[in-house]
């Protein structure tokens, strides 16, 4: 199934992209996607570990199962204001 991955700030720079469409197996969890990304883009490693995950703009736990069409965002620690 197809999902969209969004990367911000340091993660976006390290990946040299802010958005990737990915084909993944049904049943994949947010945590599983994190592990997959780490393998695919090892330079994201440490920064992915400290990132929060949002699915369709809502904070999500790593155990949540993804659905086709989901937009999964990886959010480094915030530093707004």
């Amino acid at each position, binding site marked *: 199934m197809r999902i969209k991955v969004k990367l911000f700030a340091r993660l976006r720079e390290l990946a040299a992209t802010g958005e990737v469409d990915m084909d993944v197996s049904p049943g994949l969890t947010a945590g599983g996607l994190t592990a997959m990304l780490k393998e695919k883009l090892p330079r994201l490693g440490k920064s992915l570990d400290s990132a929060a995950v949002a699915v369709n*703009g809502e904070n999500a736990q790593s155990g949540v199962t993804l659905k086709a069409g989901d937009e999964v965002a990886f*959010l480094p620690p915030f*530093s707004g*204001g």
Partner: protein
Amino acid sequence: MFIEITDRPITPERTMDVSSSVRRDAHGAVVTFNGVIRDHSEGRKVISMEYEAFREMAEKKLRELLEEIKVRWGIEDVAIVHRVGKLEIGETAVVIAVAASHRKTAFEACQYAIDRLKQIVPIWKKEVFEGGEGWV
């Protein structure tokens, strides 16, 4: 009661308009916070800052923040404008205006708003300093 994420400069005039927008006849106090780019940070000389937002989610989180303030203090007259893009020293990154019947509430809610914004709103900044740059 409004929130905005904008790439246009938050000028002193804009701050004035934001503050004016929350005033009602029942209010005795208006507290306005301006978060400004300063020329130093942890011993480094700062040149500029680049702000990036996950805009849709940031707007949602800012609206949640307004709701939290409404529930906690019964205050509805709050406005928050956050800038994104490249900011120079002295430019405003965020302005928050809170109006209330009494000053204690206005101060508390305004300080809560900026503290909470930093916790829950997906915005990031990259510091451009003398000799380098980095996400902070």
